[in-house]
């Protein structure tokens, strides 16, 4: 099977769906990639190259460059979605959600409900999350938990290229607004990805690793750090079951609860800040629905409740790493009343 990067997997998903369905359009800042530069359109293919080549095949009526105004992008996309197109809109950095939150939070997410189920809003918002590039506090956040807290939005946080392609195709075919969060350090991660189109259902976690000792739930880049920690811990005789929820809304509660029923121990790893976060949400879920199974307190490994530091040394300390994850697992595993 061909090995592809997340960037390639996302591009394939866009191409499959744009060929399959003429209503699918891409709209965002610099999505043709290079307009106004010496190389012209398609010279860059978007800020991260995901949309490179699309303008040639699909033209400017379906690959729509916009002014630098997120509120206009999201407003146009929400309106287009509710009137019959299936836009894939780019919110380049999720940190910019503030300037277009009304269009997402109070419009797109509410249309179906406000129109008594008569309106559909098949809108996908692709957006970057994650720290690690010294992009400072305004370009490094992971606010998927903010989107997750909004009823009416579905939220996808993929961790590998196979999932990225299947989840993006699912997102485009879904009739509700979906926020699709891409970690900016993961575009070059590779794995086996079929050439064919396929879909991964929302609300279906991936059990990345089997283990009977401690359940570790992790998202996006933290899945890979957790797997690193799990290999080290296995050498010490501690077997982690690693669960990647893949979507935070809907959340596959059953897979998490079933696992904790078996292991009795839970660590949640989340690159986002800890207050009102996915780590907190999942910890609460387990405390609420699997309390009797717990043999140790739930541990959360998260960023601190601060902005993301610019200084590389501080940023490195800010992001959870395999050592911190392993330490939390050891603590939970060794806990005795």
């Amino acid at each position, binding site marked *: 099977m061909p090995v592809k990067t997340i960037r390639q997997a996302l591009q394939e998903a866009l191409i499959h769906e744009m060929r399959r369905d003429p209503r699918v359009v891409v709209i965002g800042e610099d999505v043709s990639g290079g307009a106004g530069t010496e190389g012209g359109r398609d010279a860059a293919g978007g800020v991260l190259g995901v949309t490179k080549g699309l303008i040639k095949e699909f033209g400017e009526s379906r690959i729509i460059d916009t002014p630098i105004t997120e509120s206009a992008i999201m407003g146009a996309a929400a309106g287009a979605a509710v009137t019959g197109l299936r836009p894939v809109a780019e919110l380049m950095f999720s940190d910019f959600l503030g300037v277009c939150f009304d269009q997402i939070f109070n419009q797109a997410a509410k249309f179906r409900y406000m129109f008594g189920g008569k309106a559909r809003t098949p809108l996908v918002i692709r957006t970057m999350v994650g720290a690690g590039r010294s992009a400072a506090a305004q370009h490094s956040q992971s606010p998927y938990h903010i989107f997750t807290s909004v009823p009416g939005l579905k939220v996808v946080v993929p961790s590998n290229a196979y999932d990225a392609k299947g989840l993006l195709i699912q997102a485009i075919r879904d009739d509700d607004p979906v926020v699709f969060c891409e970690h900016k350090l993961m575009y070059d991660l590779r794995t086996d990805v*079929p050439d*064919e*189109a*396929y879909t*991964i259902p929302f609300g*279906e976690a991936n059990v990345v690793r089997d283990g009977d000792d401690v359940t570790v739930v992790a998202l996006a880049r933290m899945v890979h750090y957790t797997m690193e920690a799990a290999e080290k811990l296995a050498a010490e005789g501690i077997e982690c079951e690693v669960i990647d929820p893949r979507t935070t809304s809907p959340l596959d509660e059953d897979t998490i609860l079933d696992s904790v029923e078996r292991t009795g121990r839970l660590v949640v790893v989340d690159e986002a800040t800890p207050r009102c976060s996915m780590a907190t949400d999942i910890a609460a879920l387990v405390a609420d629905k699997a309390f009797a199974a717990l043999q140790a307190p739930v541990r959360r490994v998260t960023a601190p409740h601060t902005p993301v530091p610019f200084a590389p040394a501080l940023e490195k300390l800010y992001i959870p790493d395999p050592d911190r994850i392993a330490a939390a697992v050891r603590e939970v595993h060794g806990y005795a009343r």
Partner: protein
Amino acid sequence: MITAITMPKWGLTMTEGKVVQWLKQSGAAFAPGDELLEIETSKITNVVEADAAGTLTRIVAPEGTTLPIGALLAVIAPPETPTSDIDAFVAQFVVAEPADTATEEATAAAPREVQALGRTLRCLELGSGDAVPLLLLHGFGGDLNTWMFNQPAFCERRRTLALELPGHGLSSKDVGAGDAAFFTDVIEAALDVERVHVVGHSMGGALAIALAARLPERIASVTLLAPAGLGPEINRDFIETFMRASRRREAVTALQLLVHDPSLIGRAMVEEFLRYKRLDGVVGALETIAHAWFPDGRQAVDLVASLRALTMPVQVIWGRDDRIIPAAHAVAASSAQVHILDGVGHLPHMEKAGEVNRLIRAMIGTG
């Protein structure tokens, strides 16, 4: 001579396995076919059997350890071998590692593509030699990996060809009418050898009968594993769950019905099944096939007369606890050799791979 038992490689994707249990203890003598140890992969658990008689002189890999393929598990040596020789053998053992991954990918067995009736099919070919080739036909919803424990056992003296039928695995998803005639046409078009032994499982068993009836001079022998086409009964719940399953829980329910011991089904097998089911076109293809073969939860394809008319050697192998197609259907194969295996469900070639491989070897011989 001192020899090694090493971690086997089952299927295209296995990289490591876990020693679950030693079924012979250190110092024990064993005969060919004796079960030596149980190995669990993320996909399935299987038993390693002895090829020849010997003595399990020393177990190197204790129960519970996970090791890469090729790693030393135990040492086989004649009883009088000095301990120092065994020590030296263990100390000097080197896992045969490929020089680098690029070479490995270039040389490792990879499925090739075959064109048949406008469809692209995957075909895994292993082995070479003058003996009559072996053709392997998987069942409804199966793929090349169906034969992971069997195909490597027959490639010493012959070509072995595992064909992935339309609608299955990564082959084209266009299944035409999806009926026995369509698949038999495709197999005939894809068959690039003069004469073959054929082994078919479930729906592939029915296709083996149909193929042998159509091309009697080209089919040397027929081995049927829990074949379809010999009676009306089939587990309707299984077919429906199998078709519907898009999530892990339903997939586990469906796949566990296939085997006598549900613990055989590992996480990776469930994941592979789901990855297949998620591909565009798969559910539609399976629906077309199911409608042609199992409308209203009954088998519509009847190959009893065709089977009875075959003149080449035929054998039927069935698990006594088959919960998909009842083993009682084997009585329809009046003239064939029939082997009913205890403690086996619908996948005899996976659940009792050693025994099924011996029966196939006895049928196809060395010619």
